[in-house]
């Protein structure tokens, strides 16, 4: 098949089973966009900023498990894509970023809209390519897609000069290719798995800790099965929220800086932690020297470089989370592992009970917990929650319960404000059947509010919930707690009228000032089949608690007022 380089990209995207791409055109991608105009098998969604295209591709990938594709032009288009690419890198999200580049003859001459995107993207991608010979495209495209979603997933970037896009090539797309320097080890070593099983059977106070790898490898069932087989409590990180049904009696919520007291209690008192697909981020460990002081750690990860990077593992196992857990389950069955009703499980259960505070606050101004309480009651079963970054994100992590994977989408590693709305749009494109709710703060939303135009124009109705306190709340909270209440650069003051803003973009909005109005607002939003925004005025003085102070130990969470009972119980049940 003789086609242009640009068409070759489209063919590859389709053959990988991907139905959407997100982009923003410009001079150096004109030949490619010319092919898009003639394309019928693929939907191109025009965002209003390249950053939006990148996050939308991430949202698409996070909601569907498929590789998300985003496109920009050279120079500023590509530099605008760097934030979502870095975001996908830290969260191991499979996206393919395609940037236009000036014609090969001009590369290196400081041509109009030229930037060394190959060099710029290099440290924030799993791998990247600069295509100088169009004939290499089929091979490079296959390699790029394979790299995005196999092994430890991640972003891949292709820099595509304008003349390469228009060059006519013989297109033979390989079914699979061998990449000599890239052979992920999928199966865990049998001896290591046997040792892990024995350690689990012999542990007195075991705990499962699941990370984003559970979602990438679809290991949620195996993870739950393991917890059930051993009647072992389990915590999941922000990246793994939903990898175990959060209503499950053995699930303790998220650990770490803004996690649940019971989750941190379990970590700090366990004598064995089986960690799967997590990288012991500093937001999870707190002060690493005080992390899980009694525990031996079994660390399962597909990326060898994660083993021993942040926390020393007693038993490292390299492999795919799902396959290793399957083998581990089989081994435990062989060893006749049984759920034992021990003191540890009783204590954890008692603390979990004490940790279930009443957060249906009646106060005005509204406290964020109340919004999440109402959302928990009335969000449809097929909802996908997407968040921006800040207090609202941590409140949502803490108080929303999701029952399955890919239902809670958040920028975990990079903590990118402005992630939520475009990611929600991407998620909606991937899952049109789902109700997609962007949980946002006023600060984050203003970074990307132009994407409301995308949602309306591309008919991807999402619900935006703005937690509006006129402040950059999380930064303010740190200034309040750790910088003597010197509020430097955090007061947003007169924000736009978000309701009118939604209307200006062609959506609908409602302002909510009292707790009693929240339910009705959400009900209207879920019925509306268009962009719907709820602007909810919240109390700026209400801090996101409990919290592990920066550099502090997980054992020393600053409690919220609602934590009184659980703190007492934890003290009583300390090991």
């Amino acid at each position, binding site marked *: 098949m003789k086609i242009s380089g640009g068409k070759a990209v489209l063919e590859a995207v389709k053959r990988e089973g991907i139905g959407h791409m997100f982009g923003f055109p410009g001079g150096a991608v004109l030949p490619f966009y010319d092919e898009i105009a003639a394309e019928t098998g693929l939907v191109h969604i025009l965002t209003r900023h390249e950053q939006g295209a990148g996050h939308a591709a991430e949202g698409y990938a996070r909601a569907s498990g498929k590789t998300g594709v985003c496109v920009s032009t050279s120079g500023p288009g590509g530099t605008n894509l760097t934030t979502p690419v870095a975001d996908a890198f830290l969260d191991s999200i499979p996206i393919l970023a395609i940037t236009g580049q000036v014609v090969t003859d001009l590369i290196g001459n400081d041509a109009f809209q030229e930037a060394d995107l*190959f*060099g710029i993207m*290099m*440290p924030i991608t*799993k*791998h990247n390519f*600069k295509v100088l010979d169009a004939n290499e495209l089929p091979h490079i495209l296959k390699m790029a897609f394979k*790299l995005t979603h196999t092994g430890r997933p991640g972003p891949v970037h292709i820099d595509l000069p304008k003349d390469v896009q228009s060059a006519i090539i013989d297109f033979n797309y390989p079914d699979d290719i061998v*990449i*000599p*320097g*890239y052979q992920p080890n999928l199966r865990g070593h049998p001896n290591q798995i046997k040792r892990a099983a024995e350690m689990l059977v012999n542990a007195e106070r075991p705990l499962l800790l699941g990370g984003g790898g559970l979602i990438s490898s679809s290991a949620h069932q195996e993870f739950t099965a393991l917890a059930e087989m051993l009647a072992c409590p389990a915590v999941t990180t922000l990246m793994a929220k939903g990898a175990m049904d959060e209503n499950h009696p053995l699930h303790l919520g998220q650990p770490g800086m803004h996690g649940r007291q019971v989750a941190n209690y379990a970590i700090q008192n366990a004598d064995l932690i089986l960690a799967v697909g997590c990288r012991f981020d500093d937001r999870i460990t707190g002060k690493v020297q005080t992390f899980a002081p009694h525990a031996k750690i079994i660390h399962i990860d597909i*990326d*060898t*470089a994660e083993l*021993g*990077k942040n926390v020393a593992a007693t038993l490292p196992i390299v492999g795919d989370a799902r396959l290793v857990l399957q083998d581990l389950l089989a081994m435990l069955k062989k060893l006749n592992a049984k759920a034992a009703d021990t003191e540890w499980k009783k204590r954890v259960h008692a603390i979990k009970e004490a940790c279930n505070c009443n957060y249906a606050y009646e106060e005005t101004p509204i406290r964020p917990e109340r919004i999440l309480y109402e959302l928990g009651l009335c969000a449809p079963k097929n909802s996908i929650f997407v968040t921006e970054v800040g207090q609202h994100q941590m409140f949502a992590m803490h108080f929303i319960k999701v029952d399955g994977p890919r239902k809670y989408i958040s920028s975990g590693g990079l903590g990118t404000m402005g992630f939520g709305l475009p990611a929600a749009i991407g998620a909606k494109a991937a899952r049109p059947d789902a109700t997609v709710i962007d949980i946002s703060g006023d600060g984050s939303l203003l970074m990307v509010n132009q994407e409301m135009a995308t949602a309306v124009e591309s008919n991807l109705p999402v619900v935006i919930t703005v937690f509006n306190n006129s402040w950059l709340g999380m930064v303010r909270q740190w200034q309040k707690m750790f910088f003597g209440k010197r509020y430097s650069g955090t007061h947003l003051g007169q924000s736009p009228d978000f309701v009118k803003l939604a209307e200006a973009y062609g959506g609908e909005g409602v302002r909510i000032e009292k707790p009693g109005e929240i339910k009705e607002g959400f009900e209207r939003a879920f019925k509306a089949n268009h962009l719907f925004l709820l602007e909810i005025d919240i109390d700026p003085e209400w801090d996101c608690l409990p919290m592990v102070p920066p550099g502090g130990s997980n054992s020393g969470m600053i409690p919220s007022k609602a934590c009184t009972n659980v703190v007492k119980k934890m003290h009583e049940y300390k090991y």
Partner: protein
Amino acid sequence: MATERNGKEANQIGHKLYIISMLVEDRFGVLQRIAGVFSRRGFNMDTITVGKTHTPGVSRMTITTTGNEKIVEQMVKQLSKLVETLKVSVVNETESVVREIALVKVHSPDFVSRSEILNYAGIFRAKIVNVGKSSMIIEITGDYEKIDAFLDLIKPFGIKELVRTGLTAMMRE
């Protein structure tokens, strides 16, 4: 496994010299990727050599760096993770041949200095590759300790210029 380099480069306590040997694909950008693994963490490469191997498309890179065992272990893992690296190992010096070439231009204006330098060169099996009116260029091959020792000896004559290739290494059978 690692040798303390006269204590000079071991500027941080417990830091030693490590030799990392890699097989990499011979493509543009590979060096930048590898350099990125070092610079991102603020580590310096003391020396680096790159050359083709007997396999077409595959190059050998030998890098020396100073660090401790934990740092180097993490570096090796990060380097192995790069798609274009085929093999990464830390060179065990006792089981390998390690060599470096140095060219040194020494001040030697008179017969006495020339004959004395020639004498040292003979002991170290170094070669005189150029003789000028007031200086000569000596080529010396060896591990870095031998080269350091030779340089220490001829330093009093006045070193006008020094070029070292950096280490390269090969495992013994």
